[in-house]
């Protein structure tokens, strides 16, 4: 049996006695990368947002008034397959919106369930403006492009059918377009609806709060916001038409964001535009989802949009840093983490019983620090307090589980280009995309 009373003070005493340089040498990965990106940066951004909160609020309210005066038509497009069961709830959620000048277009991408019947009925009842169906499945990008072709609004809002929205979500996601005419796309704040249903969902809820809610506030503030969630994003019509709409996925939401940024528009995150979504209910489904997402980083950031790093007429330092940050913190640090692990195992094999507990202690401390930053930024901070007790588990979840999944995805994509075999897209589209290197 391990005697915790003896071990705890011993490893802490050990690191206290070996001195700061040895500590930095062993935990360089944590200090150099994790501490800076996920703690210091968040607090620096929080500090500046706090300083300029009044100006930002005034600017936001002014933009909101402009929006209400102009009252433009928004086209809400919802592409999907077998989403019929969510449509009624979605329509009801949209009916509750504070912004009313909305046309709702739903595209059924070759569903093999009751979706066509439900969609046609809702269209007949006047609850949706246009229901389009592709008898043959073409993939999510083609369904979104079909909706885009028939959308009449000056702003296109892309949603997933299984999402629900705060009453002011649609209005708030459009307001930033009136704050800066150079903004071409705005990402919504996607949170987890089913976080109370199990451990897997709770851990994802914390992850979403960290990476989506807080993480994207930080990148957006720095002007390097690089992914507009497919679940909730808004696009200026000319911006999205200018880039020809969506290309074949998976990972089409990140791809469209890069395309819009490359065409000269800004992309921003709007934390007050809150959308709730249901996340995978077990680790098997979650693993499949993350393998798909992580492969798209290699496919799009590293391969398709590698020209961002080349000097050319349209070169932009912000785009450079946006992609660099994404690739660095996901791909390079993932590789570096394995190097770090090997480094520790080879050079500090005899002191692993001091290193491992210290590592967990550091990451747990960071997890609570992140919970504090979430608390600072969140508009639902009191509801999210119940997630705090799960924060220590995030060390295993993000530090180990997600890293292993990410590594598998990178190898699969780098070596085998497995994203083209993903059944998420029909073979006819994937084979063409693979042939042309998209």
């Amino acid at each position: 049996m391990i005697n915790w009373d003896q071990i705890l003070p011993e490893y802490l005493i050990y690191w206290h006695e070996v001195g700061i340089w040895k500590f930095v040498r062993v935990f360089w990965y944590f200090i150099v990368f994790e501490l800076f990106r996920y703690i210091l940066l968040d607090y620096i951004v929080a500090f500046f947002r706090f300083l300029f909160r009044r100006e930002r609020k005034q600017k936001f309210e002014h933009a909101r008034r402009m929006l209400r005066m102009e009252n433009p038509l928004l086209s809400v497009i919802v592409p999907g397959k077998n989403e019929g069961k969510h449509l009624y709830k979605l329509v009801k959620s949209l009916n509750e919106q504070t912004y009313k000048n909305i046309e709702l277009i739903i595209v059924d991408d070759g569903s093999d369930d009751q979706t066509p019947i439900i969609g046609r009925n809702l269209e007949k009842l006047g609850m949706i403006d246009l229901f389009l169906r592709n008898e043959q499945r073409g993939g999510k990008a083609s369904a979104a492009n079909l909706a885009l072709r028939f959308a009449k609004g000056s702003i296109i809002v892309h949603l997933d059918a299984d999402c629900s929205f705060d009453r002011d979500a649609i209005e708030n996601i459009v307001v930033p377009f009136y704050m800066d005419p150079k903004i071409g796309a705005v990402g919504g704040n996607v949170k987890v609806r089913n976080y109370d249903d199990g451990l897997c969902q709770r851990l994802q809820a914390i992850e979403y709060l960290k990476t989506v809610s807080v993480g994207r506030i930080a990148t957006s503030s720095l002007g390097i916001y690089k992914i507009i969630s497919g679940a909730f994003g808004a696009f200026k019509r000319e911006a999205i038409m200018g880039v020809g709409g969506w290309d074949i996925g998976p990972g089409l939401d990140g791809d469209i964001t890069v395309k819009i940024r490359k065409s000269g528009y800004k992309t921003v995150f709007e934390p007050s535009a809150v959308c709730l979504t249901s996340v995978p209910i077990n680790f098997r489904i979650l693993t499949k989802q993350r393998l798909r997402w992580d492969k798209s980083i290699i496919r799009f950031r590293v391969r398709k949009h590698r020209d961002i790093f080349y000097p050319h007429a349209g070169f932009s330092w912000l785009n450079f840093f946006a992609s660099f940050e994404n690739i660095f913190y996901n791909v390079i640090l993932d590789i570096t983490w394995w190097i770090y692990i090997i480094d520790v195992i080879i050079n500090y094999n005899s002191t692993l019983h001091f290193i491992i507990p210290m590592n967990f202690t550091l990451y747990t401390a960071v997890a609570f620090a992140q919970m504090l930053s979430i608390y600072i930024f969140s508009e639902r901070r009191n509801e999210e307090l119940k997630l705090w007790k799960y924060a220590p588990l995030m060390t295993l979840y993000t530090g180990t589980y997600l890293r292993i999944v990410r590594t598998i995805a990178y190898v699969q994509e780098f070596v085998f280009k497995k994203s083209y075999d993903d059944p998420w897209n029909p073979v006819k589209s994937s084979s063409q995309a693979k042939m042309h290197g998209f």
Partner: protein
Amino acid sequence: MLKILKQGEARLNVIEYEGVVFLRVSHGGFNLSEVAPHIDAMYIETTDEDVINGLVSKVRESNKVSEYLMPVFASSIAMKPALETVVDGFVRNMDFFQAARQTREIQERIGQIKYSEVGDENYDDYVLKTLSFLFSRNQALMPFRKRNSSTGYAYPFLCNLDHADGFSQLEYINTAVQDGLLNTTLVDKVNHCPHCSDTFLHFRESCSSCGSIDLKYEDLIHHFKCAHVAPLSDFVQGDKLCCPKCDNELRHIGIDYDKPSEITVCNTCNHQSQETNMTVHCMGCGKESSLSELNTHDVNSFEITEKGIVRAINGKKTQVITKHKQVSSNVIEWDLFKLYLRQETKRAQLSGSPAAMVSIRLNAEALWELSTHESGVLQHEVLNILSSYIRPTDLVAARNIFDYQIIVTMGSTEYVEELKHVVEVNLIKLIKDNLQIESCSVEVFSEELGGNANMAIV
């Protein structure tokens, strides 16, 4: 042997074939009542459909049984689908063999009909004529397609009976169905205008937004390479298909692109949708309706029931009492009796043990005058008497007020003969004592089961 004769002063043009006399006509210039006694059937020799229909109507509209049930044939040169059910048949190359055979069969059945004339005033007369026609032809009343009928269908005989058309024609017939004289089988369902009941309807797609019928349909194209989806017209550049998003030429369907769906564009309001409304334009009254507003009407064929046959033969309101009070456990319903009879016949054939069927028929004209209630009482009494003389293993049933049958299981010839005697004596006594009828008789005869005896009722 075919004989072509000209008879009498009226110079009847008749054809005799093996004893069957056909009146040969090509127009309506004759007096049916005068010629009917001299002929068995009519042969119409013209290709004019209206003339044929007129001549058939002239026959069917008569009130005399021998006239309105007269077989009518037409020359095969006039053979048209619309006439196939109006006449009894067609004569090809003056070969009357089939027509003569058919006429004899019809005449034989007409011979069973016990009245010579019907009225022309009410429901009973109309129904009786129809029933007697179906009985004489031994066939169902099958609807045929008729373009100028408001229902889209017409019925043979009925359409020549009174020139009535549409739903009114069927009112009497449907009442006869409710009275159990006819059975129905669904043949078709027709939609008709909610405003004028016409079935000449024009179905057309219209814009779900403005109702215009000026719609344009266009294929949607999905370019696999760049996931662009748009109407075909967006891709057309001269003779080629080029993607407006990536400028690539679309060369091969299934490889470069496919057509996952189509879109409808309204040329009036420019509304684009995949959902159109189906509207119905009535060519009769010109009014528009939606599909859900249309009335639907069943088109049935009609088959005469046993009750209907009794009515067709006797010409009076039915005397069949199908439901009677339970007299004893030996008395069963007629349909069940038929089933038992078949089973008993098979059993007798297989086992070789004796079994017999005793048939009883009451012959008394006065029974027709009885009311429904009186008929029920009489039938009950008859069954009471019959059940009292049979053994517990025998079964008895009433077919109608006149006809009764008994299955005698395991009965010797002596037992059957004795049963016949007591039944005859007691039933004559019952009728004479209770109904004060002098001219009545009771026919009782028996047949051994196991042979073809069951054919008598099945």
